[in-house]
């Protein structure tokens, strides 16, 4: 059960129930749709930019607890960061959940996002955690649709 507790922590359950920045952004500078066809997770990420800064970021959609909590926490962390910083966080997050970055021993900037390191133990759920990040990456790069297939 320790693995399970590691995955479904209070924080994740809380963000699932009350997702932050769960809204649309009118006149967003970038939007992208993320789909995970395997489980039917579908979300849209909105980005509002001011120069090179992510001034606002939000999401809408439906998905499992992991994907919703990940999206919710992503919006909190990325807001106010530069595009470059957001991109770095995307890379670090991706490395963490695919086993390329040991967040305990290697330097990183993930902070509270480290909570998602636990999904490494659940290979079927890695895509749930990373869907919002891939979608943000696409929104920042002017791509419209991503799929985690």
């Amino acid at each position, binding site marked *: *059960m320790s*693995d*399970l507790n590691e*995955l*479904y922590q209070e924080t994740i*359950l809380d963000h*699932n129930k009350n997702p932050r920045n769960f809204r649309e952004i009118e006149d967003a500078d970038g939007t992208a749709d993320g789909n995970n066809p*395997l*489980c*039917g*997770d*579908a979300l849209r990420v909105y980005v509002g930019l001011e120069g090179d800064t992510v001034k606002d970021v939000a999401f809408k959609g*439906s*998905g*499992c*607890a*992991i994907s919703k909590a990940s999206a919710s926490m992503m919006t909190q962390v990325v807001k106010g960061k530069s595009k470059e910083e957001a991109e770095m966080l995307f890379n670090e997050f991706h490395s963490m959940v695919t086993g390329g970055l040991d967040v305990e021993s290697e330097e990183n900037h993930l902070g509270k996002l480290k909570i998602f390191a636990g999904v490494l133990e*659940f290979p*079927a*759920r890695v895509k*749930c955690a990373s869907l919002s990040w891939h979608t943000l990456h696409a929104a920042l790069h002017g791509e419209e649709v991503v799929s985690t297939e």
Partner: protein
Amino acid sequence: MSGWDVEKIRKDFPVLSRDVNGKPLVYLDNAASSQVPQSVIDRTSKYLAEEHSNIHRGVHYLSQHATTAYEAAREKVKRFINAPDVKECIFVRGCTEGINLIAHSYGRKFIGEGDEIMVSQMEHHSNIIPWQMVAEERGAKIRMIPIDQHGQLVIDEYENMLNERTKMVAVAHVSNSLGSVNPIKEMVATAHKFGVPVCVDAAQSVPHFPVDVQDLDADFFVFSGHKMFAPTGSGIVYGKREWLDQMPPYQTGGGMIRTVSFEKTTFAPIPEKFEAGTPAIAAGIGLGAAIDYLNAIDFEAGAKYEHDLLEYATGRLSDIPGVTIVGTAAEKASVLSFTIEGIHPHDIGTILDQDGIAVRAGHHCAQPVMKFFEVPATARASFAFYNTREEVDKLADSVQKVIEVFA
């Protein structure tokens, strides 16, 4: 349960005694793939260890021996589904390949501009997409037989939709996402009034109750070995000779010809016409062994036991507040799809897995069904005759736990 010794049956399936995540495995994903009894494992291993050779080719001992074993498996299939003629039983790699074979071969010959293909709303994607591809190629139209809120086909609609342009009815015997058992015999009789053949996706029926293609009068009847206790890689297309004889080959190559020259090739008769290339011989022989197994146990008693188990499970889960059963047809087999209010099926599946319980979470390759019931996905427990009431109790306890975790 009188007449069915489930503990004895469980001993026939080695995987059922293993642990998963530190808990005894509770395998409730039989609709995805069933487990394999020791006798089938032994027969397949024996073939690979002692009998393997290519079939229908050699004059040497092993080749003849392998051919005999493979053809004996075909004969077992014939008896298992009560086909009139063993030649009407074509080996394929699985149900998906079988439906593709029928759709493309039949379609090329019999479907034209403006024709209609009727496909039900509850079909697995593999009984939708092959027909869509053919419809696109031939300029034909797909028409959907609707379902009602219980997940039953609306038979009146079906009867009204049939017309002189209808060239095929493609329908599941048992729905993989809802468990509904469709009234195939009646549907076939109605279609035949219009001279329309029926292609039955039997992937989810053959493992759960005895079938008889002559009684159903089905024109095509397709299923996979790996959902009926055989290894992956085997499947069967049964087709009436009157259709199969007229249909062109699906794949071409070795083993399916009469003569070949660069001017003209003539094809072998059925079933070889549809069996190009070296087949999955071990899997085919394994399918024969699985049928031997079903013949050796009392399959009818097993089917009844399994049906009682499904009803028990339906009752247990229905009693849990927040749980909704998706698919409440009057006639059901094996499948119990459900949702829990506010909790995504993937989270359900992950938490159940921690208790050693294997269920499927997702859209079950039936997105039109998910759309109809307005859910992104469901969790699906699917039973076989080796599952027990204790396992159902564990499922119910674990579902309760899911609700507590998310409370």
